[in-house]
Every structure is written in structure tokens, then in C-alpha cells.
């Protein structure tokens, strides 16, 4: 169902024919408007039907041609014969319009060319009339009014103007003027020898700045399909370069003159058409010029383009994968084309190739001095090293076809690059890509190849760069098809900002950073790294940790399988392989434990140590966890997480190095308690001290350190038997947060009241240790930070918060109202992640993690007052909270609560069901009110 241009023209003839007869400007504009509306709708229907991107943009361009021509006709007819400016004008389409490539809501770029003679006033008036018509009928026109000379001047000075005018097209008006323009552009701008090199350079610079602004990686989470790497502009850059270097206008001309191969031509057209179609859909869906594919737009586009979820991938993820593949193709084509164009220019520019050598000889003959010169043929290859390192790049000194006779040669190049800490030159990259067919099944299975690859992983600090080179040249995907399967694999969940392949490479980079030790803050990690003898299993483990993704749930066991197979294939030693498999199997263990569980729990710690088994593995796991988290998103790694992770590491390490069973720690702790008791007994009656420790829960003795034990007792004393509320503030440097301790008599909903008050002061709770003495005295320690930026709370704020906390605990402060007020202040924009993610808050129970408590995990959208709502609901059900850990990631919150029922026991099933019902309800109700008026209407109904 191609677009029938005749039909549109006929339609135009019908509707717009009588336009001139009715002089009422408003009526004319109306007619044009309705014509445009009908045609736009027709285009949209064809797009929905499945017509390719370039067809649609061509169609729109034709429609605009019709409209512009009619508008010009109309304006000309309205002017009297003497002042007819139209004859001296040419209306020229430039930019995308010139290429007949107009997206549904793109601007229309028109050049009004005038003859430059003095009497251009009539031309001006003509242009005015046309322009006003076009604007009033709703077209967004970018225009300029220039003589031919002015165009040339503009094209020479301004890169944007020059690129816009590479493919001008006459819409209507003086053909002579247009021909003159084309001729002078060729002579003075595009075909001038001197200009070419400069033009190519400025194109390169423009490319760099465009990538810097819109994204250098193809696999951005939210790419700009026009401007990001791999977007439509990459093809335009090819066309601009082509115009200047090869004097070819358009992709077809390039093909005709064999400047690009048949395969490249087909690739360019396919990719461009797909991305164009995607862009058109974005325009149609949003009704505006939308080029940025935001996260909440992607599912809409996927649905409209009729993508279905398949095999564990969401529809939007499948769409993005297709996009990334096409964009990567286009991007590579652009890169290699620019390299070739540059080469073509330099070959032409040089009188003699730089590499030719010349021999000079002086001799006497018949009393005359003669100088003879002859060129010496270049000795290439014979006896010379195949590679040369120049300016940090590896160059091949031989002909690629001579050198690449086996895939091992390809692999070796990466070794060379790694050893010299250099990148591959553009030409070499192209050569590698051209010779990928050498990577056969046999090669993949060869032990030599496997060993060489494994060796590369030993180059601490230099692994990421070499892996990236392999990935960019597609060698990595060829050699390891498992990795090809996760290339461009999008992870549309709360945490991950990058595709799986990008995430993996970034994790390797994080490891390299540790090895290089450039960041002071990461020095402790570097020391751990230095304890590891063989870095290769660690690197391989990190490389494979997410390799099982992309086929629905269960990526860990699948990853283990793949890792085992791969290690066997590559001939990795069994010891190393066991490390790799361990890392893949348990890559989430340490972060989960540290962030979601009570690490002072002996049972849990014991299990962890048993699983880990050795100090070497503990070290590797620590580094893997660090690398994984760092690579999830730019701000994913923060001081708080570091603190939690190190605490777990230290506890585990002390057990592993001493080789003593975990129980020993209990005796250690007892000694701490005795020390504390001893110190306190010097200042307070000993019987009181002992009574205090006897009444404190078991967990307290495990978790609190000497300092805390002493301090807490003193705080309790200050409450004078519970008649006062005592609040203590601490800002320990190494903990990167503020510690707030509240000491008072227990009361109903105490935790909720404290949590609510803190929220109302824009304070984030990171974790809470809640201890209740048997006689009802409460020692609650909160680790808090400021809501934005995660900085410790400024000391100036402490008095105010303290005052309100006391008031809240004593019942004089309306916490619920304060939380509401805070929520109203904080305007939360409509959440930007897809529907799947914020369907409903989910509640999970873990009855095994602790011996005495039930662990409740609440996954939900992060809204202010979340902890308050949960704490309030739990206390209304009569439950006690002993520990809380709060983790927030962008707009997603994972809250962990260790609870017991009113009798101090684990929860029975009736209670758990009640919680499973009431919590989501309470959170849902909260979500509604907090979103309030800031959401669009449609979304409100969806919630």
C-alpha cells in the first residue's frame, strides 16, 4: 500500500483550487488547515498500516510541497503585475525538507532565494505573504531570505548552514536562480579542494560535540533517535561528507559510484528506515516533535508498533533491542565511512605518499654536477614488525589480507593493544571487523584461543579497554556467542541503567579502577585486590555474572550453567573454573545480606561464611559486589552501601582468618558487655548497671559496641525512669550519616511517630535498631541522612528536629498532619518507569533469616512518608519492630523490617496474611494522595 502521490495531488487540486477566488484570508487559512489535517491523517493511517519510515517522511514532504506551491501561487496572484516579486524568487527546500525527509512534526526549512538586485522590495512582500500563510496554517517554518552571494557566504562561515544546503531542492519559482545557486555552491563551497579537508574536520568536530551532548554510547537508556550516536544524524553526516569528498548527492549516488558496498547500502537503508519509522511513531504518539525516547514513552511506542513480549522480554525491551542493533549498524557505518573519506582525501592531497622514500645521488660528469633522484620502493612486511604504535594507537604495518590468515592473528592484536596500553587505529578496527569470518566454531573451541583470552584477563587495570575493543569490533560476540546473546539486552527494572553488555563492561572497568588505584576513597578495595594472586578468575567471574539474563527469571542458575560450559571450552584450570562458577552463582549474596538482613545474626553470618569458604573467595566476592553495584547506574555506589558491605566483610574476614567457629563471637561480645559494665559501675550503682544489661534483648549484646553500650546506659539514666525523653545526636565521620538515638518509655506507635516526624523534616531513615528493655524502656538508634544528596544532617537542624520529636513522642505534635504537609510540598512528577514496575507494592516474608523474628520485605514506589506508613500499619496490628533497613534507588524503595508479635514471637500465618492485605492497601492509599494533581489524568485512572 504505497503512498499514492497522485491522489494527494488530486485532493489538493480539489480543495485548494478555489483558494484564490475567495480573498478572505481567514477562510483561505482555514481551507489550508483542513487540507493539512486530512493529509496528515492519511499519512498516519498508512504509518499504522506498516509503511516504512522513509515512505512516510517522503509523503509528508510532498504534501508540504503542494501546500507551499499553492501558497506561493496565491500570494503571487494577489500582487499586481508590476510588483510581482515572485518572478525574482526561488523557493528552495533545504535541510531535511530538501532531502524529502520530513518527520510528522518536524520543522520545515525553506530558503527564499532572491536575485540580489536592488529592487527586492516586491520580493520581500511576496515572501512575507507566503510566510504568514504558512505560519498561520500551522506549519513551523525555519526560513531565510538571501541572495545567492549571501548563501555562499553563509555556507562558508557557518557549518549548520552549509550542511543544511547540501541537498537543496527547488519547490517553486525561478529555475534559473536555483541553477545559479547550485553551480556556485559547487564551485565555491563543496567542490573546492581546499574546503574539503576543512569541511571533513569540522564534521568530525560537530560529531564529537553532538555525541558529547546527546550520548556517545548507542545503548543509552533514553536515546535521542535523531542526535545520539547511531541516530538519524549519523546517516546525515555520511551524506554531508559524501557531498564534499565524493561529490555524491544521496545514498543512491554513493552506491552508483561504488563508494559504499552493496551490503553497506542495504544496511544503511534498513537501519535508517527503521529508526525513521520509530521516530515517526514517537511524533504521532505524542503529537509533537519528540526525538527523545523516554522510559515511559518506550512501552507506548512498542505497543503501537505492535511488539509483543517474548521469552522474558517486555515489548518495550524487544523494541529497544531492535533499535540498538540498527543504531549500532548505522553508527559503525558512519564511523567507517568517515575513516574512508578521510583516507580518500589524504591520498588525493599528497603529491607523493608519505611512505615513499627517495634516494639522492650526486655525481660529476663532464665537469657538470648532476643530482639524480629515484624513489625506493617501500619494503613492507619483510622482516619488519607487523605492528607499530603511534600516538597511543596500534597500526598494522602490513596489508590486512596478508596478515590475517588465522583468527589467532585477530586475538593477538588485542594482546598487543593491551601490552602497549593503546587503542586500535580506526583502520585496524575495520580490518578486524572485515575478517571476523575467520572466527570459526573450531577456533572457539581451541585451547590456544581460550588460553590467550584468559591471559588477557590477567592484565589488571587494562582489561576493560581491551574487552571494549573486542566488543566494538564484534570480535567478542563472535568468539563468545553467549555474550552476543546479552548484547543490547535491555533491563527495564528499577536499578539498571545500562544494557547487560554495557553493564558488564562497566563492571570490568570498575575493577580496573581499583587496580589502578586512582581514587583515594577506594584504597581499602585496592588493598583487598592486591591480596588476590590470580586476577583472571575474578575478571572472568565479573564478566559472566549476568550472562544468564534475557530469558525470563532464573538468570543465576542459567548463568552458572553457561559459566561452567564456557570454562570447559576455554580450557580454564579446574581451580580457576570453580572460582568463576562460585562468583556467578553467588554474585548477589553479599549485597543482599549486607543491605537486607541483620548481619549481626550469628546464624546468618555462619551460613554466609560456610558458603564463601575461604578468604580468597571472600575477597573476590567483595570486589565483584563492588564492581556490580558501581556498574548499575552512576550514583548506585554510595558511602552508605560501602559501610554496610565493609561491616559484613570485616565480620566474615575475622572469622575466616582466625579459623574459629562463629560461636566464638558470642564470647567476644560477652567480654564487651563486661567491659562496658565495668566502666559504668565506676560512675553508677553496679546493681543498676547489671539489671540494665539483664533486661536488654539478646540482639543488643551482639550488635552494640563498647562505646554505644556505655552511652546508651547513660541516656537511659537521664530519662529519670522514663519521665523524660532523651535524644542524642552523633555524626561519626566514617559512617557517612548521622546517628540519632531516642530514649524513652515505650508507647503505642512510637516508631511510627519518630519516623513520621523525621520525614516531615526532610530526613531519610537509612536504618533503625530498635531495642526495648524488658521493663518497657526503649533505646532506638536511627541512622539518618538528608533526603536529597544523602549527606549527614546538618547540625543546625538538630535542635528543631529534637524539639518536634519530643513533642511527637509526648503526643503534642500531630505527626500525620505534618507528614501530609510535607507530602503536599514535595511535588512528585509522574513516575517515569513503565507500568510493569509500579503495579502494586509487594510484601514478602522471610521466616528463616532470623531465629526470633520474621523478616518483612516491602518493595514499593518511593514516596515521602513510606517508612511512617509501614511503621504505623505494623504497630496498629500490634507488632514490634526490632530492626529496619531502608534502601531507596531513584524512585524505588526496598524496606526491610524484622518484626515480632506482641508476645515477642515470630508471626503466625494469620498475622502474615493480615499484613499482606493491609500494607499494600495503606501504601496504595498513600500513593494516591501524594500523587494528587501532579499526574496526568489518564495515569490517575490507571493507578
Amino acid at each position: 500500500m504505497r503512498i499514492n502521490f497522485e491522489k494527494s495531488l488530486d485532493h489538493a487540486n480539489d480543495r485548494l483550487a478555489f483558494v484564490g477566488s475567495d480573498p478572505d484570508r481567514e477562510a483561505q487559512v482555514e481551507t489550508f488547515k483542513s487540507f493539512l489535517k486530512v493529509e496528515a491523517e492519511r499519512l498516519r493511517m498508512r504509518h499504522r498500516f506498516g509503511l516504512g519510515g522513509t515512505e512516510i517522511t517522503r509523503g509528508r514532504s510532498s504534501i508540504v510541497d503542494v501546500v507551499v506551491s499553492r501558497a506561493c501561487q496565491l500570494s503571487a496572484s494577489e500582487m499586481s503585475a508590476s510588483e510581482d516579486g515572485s518572478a525574482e524568487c526561488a523557493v528552495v527546500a533545504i535541510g531535511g525538507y530538501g532531502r524529502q525527509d520530513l518527520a510528522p512534526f518536524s520543522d520545515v526549512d525553506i530558503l527564499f532565494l532572491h536575485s540580489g538586485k536592488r529592487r527586492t522590495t516586491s520580493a520581500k512582500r511576496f515572501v512575507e505573504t507566503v510566510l504568514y500563510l504558512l505560519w498561520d496554517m500551522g506549519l513551523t517554518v525555519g526560513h531565510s531570505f538571501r541572495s545567492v552571494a549571501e548563501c555562499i557566504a553563509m555556507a562558508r562561515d557557518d557549518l549548520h548552514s552549509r550542511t543544511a544546503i547540501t541537498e537543496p531542492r527547488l519547490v517553486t519559482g525561478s529555475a534559473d536562480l536555483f541553477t545559479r545557486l547550485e553551480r556556485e555552491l559547487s564551485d565555491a563551497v563543496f567542490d573546492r579542494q581546499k574546503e574539503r579537508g576543512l569541511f571533513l574536520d569540522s564534521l568530525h568536530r560537530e560529531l564529537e560535540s553532538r555525541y558529547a551532548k546527546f550520548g556517545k554510547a548507542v545503548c543509552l537508556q533514553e536515546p535521542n533517535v535523531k542526535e545520539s550516536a547511531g541516530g538519524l544524524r549519523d546517516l546525515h553526516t555520511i551524506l554531508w561528507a559524501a557531498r564534499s569528498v565524493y561529490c555524491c548527492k544521496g545514498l543512491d549516488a554513493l552506491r552508483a559510484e561504488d563508494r559504499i558496498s552493496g551490503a553497506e547500502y542495504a544496511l544503511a537503508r534498513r537501519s535508517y528506515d527503521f529508526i525513521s519509522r520509530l521516530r515517526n511513531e514517537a511524533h504521532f504518539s505524542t503529537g509533537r516533535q519528540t526525538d527523545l525516547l523516554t522510559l515511559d514513552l518506550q512501552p507506548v511506542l512498542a505497543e503501537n508498533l505492535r511488539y509483543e513480549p517474548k521469552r522474558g522480554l517486555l515489548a518495550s525491551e524487544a523494541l529497544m533491542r531492535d533499535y540498538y542493533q540498527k543504531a549500532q549498524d548505522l553508527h559503525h557505518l558512519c564511523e567507517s565511512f568517515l575513516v574512508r573519506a578521510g583516507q580518500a582525501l589524504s591520498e588525493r592531497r599528497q603529491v607523493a605518499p608519505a611512505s615513499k622514500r627517495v634516494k639522492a645521488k650526486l655525481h660529476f660528469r663532464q665537469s657538470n654536477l648532476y643530482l639524480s633522484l629515484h624513489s625506493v620502493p617501500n619494503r613492507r612486511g619483510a622482516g619488519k614488525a607487523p605492528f607499530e604504535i603511534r600516538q597511543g594507537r596500534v597500526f598494522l604495518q602490513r596489508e590486512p589480507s596478508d596478515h590475517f590468515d588465522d583468527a589467532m592473528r585477530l586475538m593477538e592484536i588485542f594482546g598487543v593493544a593491551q601490552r602497549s596500553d593503546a587503542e586500535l587505529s580506526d583502520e585496524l578496527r575495520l580490518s578486524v571487523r572485515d575478517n571476523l569470518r575467520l572466527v570459526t566454531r573450531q577456533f572457539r573451541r581451541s585451547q590456544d584461543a581460550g588460553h590467550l583470552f584468559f591471559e588477557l584477563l590477567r592484565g589488571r587495570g587494562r582489561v576493560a579497554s581491551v574487552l571494549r575493543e573486542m566488543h566494538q569490533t564484534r570480535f567478542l560476540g563472535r568468539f563468545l556467542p553467549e555474550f552476543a546473546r546479552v548484547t543490547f539486552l535491555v533491563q527495564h527494572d528499577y536499578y539498571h541503567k545500562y544494557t547487560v553488555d554495557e553493564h558488564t563492561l562497566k563492571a570490568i572497568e570498575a575493577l580496573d579502577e581499583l587496580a589502578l588505584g586512582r581514587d583515594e576513597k577506594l584504597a581499602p578495595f585496592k588493598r583487598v585486590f592486591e591480596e588476590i594472586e590470580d586476577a583472571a578468575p575474578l575478571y572472568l567471574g565479573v564478566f559472566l555474572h549476568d550472562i544468564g539474563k534475557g530469558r525470563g527469571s532464573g538468570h543465576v542458575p542459567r548463568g552458572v550453567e553457561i559459566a561452567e560450559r564456557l570454562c570447559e571450552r576455554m580450557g580454564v584450570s579446574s581451580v580457576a573454573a570453580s572460582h568463576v562458577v562460585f562468583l556467578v552463582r553467588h554474585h548477589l549474596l553479599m549485597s543482599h545480606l549486607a543491605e537486607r538482613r541483620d548481619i549481626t545474626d550469628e546464624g546468618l553470618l555462619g551460613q554466609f561464611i560456610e558458603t564463601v569458604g575461604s578468604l580468597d573467595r571472600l575477597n573476590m566476592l567483595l570486589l565483584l559486589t563492588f564492581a556490580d553495584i558501581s556498574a548499575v547506574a552512576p550514583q548506585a555506589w554510595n558511602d552508605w552501601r560501602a559501610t554496610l558491605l565493609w561491616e559484613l566483610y570485616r565480620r566474615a574476614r575475622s572469622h575466616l582468618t582466625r579459623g574459629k567457629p562463629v560461636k566464638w563471637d558470642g564470647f567476644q561480645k560477652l567480654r564487651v558487655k563486661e567491659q562496658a559494665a565495668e566502666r559504668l559501675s565506676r560512675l553508677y550503682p553496679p546493681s543498676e548497671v547489671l539489671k540494665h544489661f539483664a533486661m536488654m534483648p539478646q540482639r543488643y549484646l551482639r550488635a552494640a559496641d563498647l562505646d554505644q553500650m556505655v552511652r546508651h546506659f547513660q541516656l537511659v539514666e537521664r530519662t529519670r525512669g522514663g519521665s523524660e525523653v532523651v535524644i542524642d545526636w552523633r555524626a561519626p565521620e566514617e559512617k557517612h550519616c548521622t546517628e540519632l538515638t531516642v530514649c524513652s518509655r515505650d508507647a503505642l506507635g512510637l516508631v511510627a511517630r519518630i519516623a513520621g516526624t523525621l520525614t516531615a523534616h526532610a530526613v531519610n531513615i537509612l536504618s533503625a535498631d530498635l531495642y526495648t528493655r524488658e521493663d518497657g524502656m526503649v533505646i532506638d538508634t536511627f541512622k539518618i541522612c538528608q533526603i536529597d544528596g544523602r549527606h549527614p544532617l546538618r547540625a543546625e537542624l538538630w535542635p528543631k528536629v529534637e524539639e518536634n520529636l519530643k513533642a511527637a513522642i509526648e503526643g503534642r505534635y500531630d505527626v500525620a498532619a505534618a507528614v501530609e504537609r510535607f507530602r503536599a510540598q514535595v511535588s512528585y512528577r509522574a513516575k517515569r518507569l513503565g507500568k510493569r514496575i509500579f503495579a502494586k507494592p509487594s510484601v514478602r516474608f522471610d521466616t528463616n533469616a532470623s531465629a526470633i523474628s520474621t523478616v518483612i520485605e516491602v518493595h514499593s514506589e518511593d514516596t515521602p512518608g513510606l517508612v511512617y506508613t509501614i511503621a504505623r500499619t505494623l504497630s496498629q496490628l500490634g507488632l514490634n519492630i526490632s530492626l529496619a533497613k531502608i534502601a531507596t534507588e531513584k524512585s524505588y524503595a526496598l524496606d526491610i523490617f524484622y518484626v515480632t508479635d506482641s508476645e515477642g514471637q515470630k508471626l503466625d500465618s494469620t498475622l502474615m496474611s493480615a499484613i499482606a492485605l493491609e500494607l499494600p492497601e495503606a501504601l496504595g492509599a498513600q500513593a494516591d494522595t501524594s500523587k494528587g494533581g501532579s499526574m496526568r489524568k489518564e495515569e490517575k485512572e490507571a493507578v
Partner: protein
Amino acid sequence: MRKIDAIIRPHLLDAVKNALQEVGITGMTITEVKGFGRQKGHTETYRGSEYKIDFIPKVKIEVVVPEEMVDHVIDAVAKTAKTGKFGDGKIFVVPIEEVIRIRTGERNEQAI
């Protein structure tokens, strides 16, 4: 009560002021501002790069009037400030919650 913000060409300020007085406006505030609209500040005969944006000097008139006068004021401004060319400007109407005359403490309608 509503506030009417009118962005107009500077040279038409006097004309608009007179027209407003004829309609019965008792006070106004003027600010010199800069701005652009859809055409990015380019006139019909613009020669430069289509992609550059130019700020054009304008004048902003603010008047607060009772509900009944809003349409009269809009008409007066629109008629006087219109030249038919790009750059004529825009009129915005904004609701007002309260007005107080500082000297006497009068409020709302009495204070206009």
C-alpha cells in the same frame, strides 16, 4: 479580579496606554523585557542561520481589573498593539487572589 499581562512592541506603548485609559483603567505597571516566540525572533527578511535564536526587546504591561472589564481591556490592547507582523506579542490573563492598597488597607475591588 484578574491580572492582564500584555507583551507588546515598545514603540506602541503610548498608544496602548491611551487606549487603556479610555477603557477606564486606573493604574498599570510597565517593565522592559526581552523575548521571542515561534519565529525565534527572526523577521520575514532574516538572513542568518535558521538555528539561532534572537531576543527582541518588548514591553510588558500589567493591569489588575475587575472581572467585568477583562474583555474590554483585551480588546483595547489587541486592537492597538496589532500590526499584523510577527512580533505583535501576546496577552495573558491570570486570576488574582487578593489586592491591598498599602496606604489605606483597602482590599480587593476597593483597592483596584
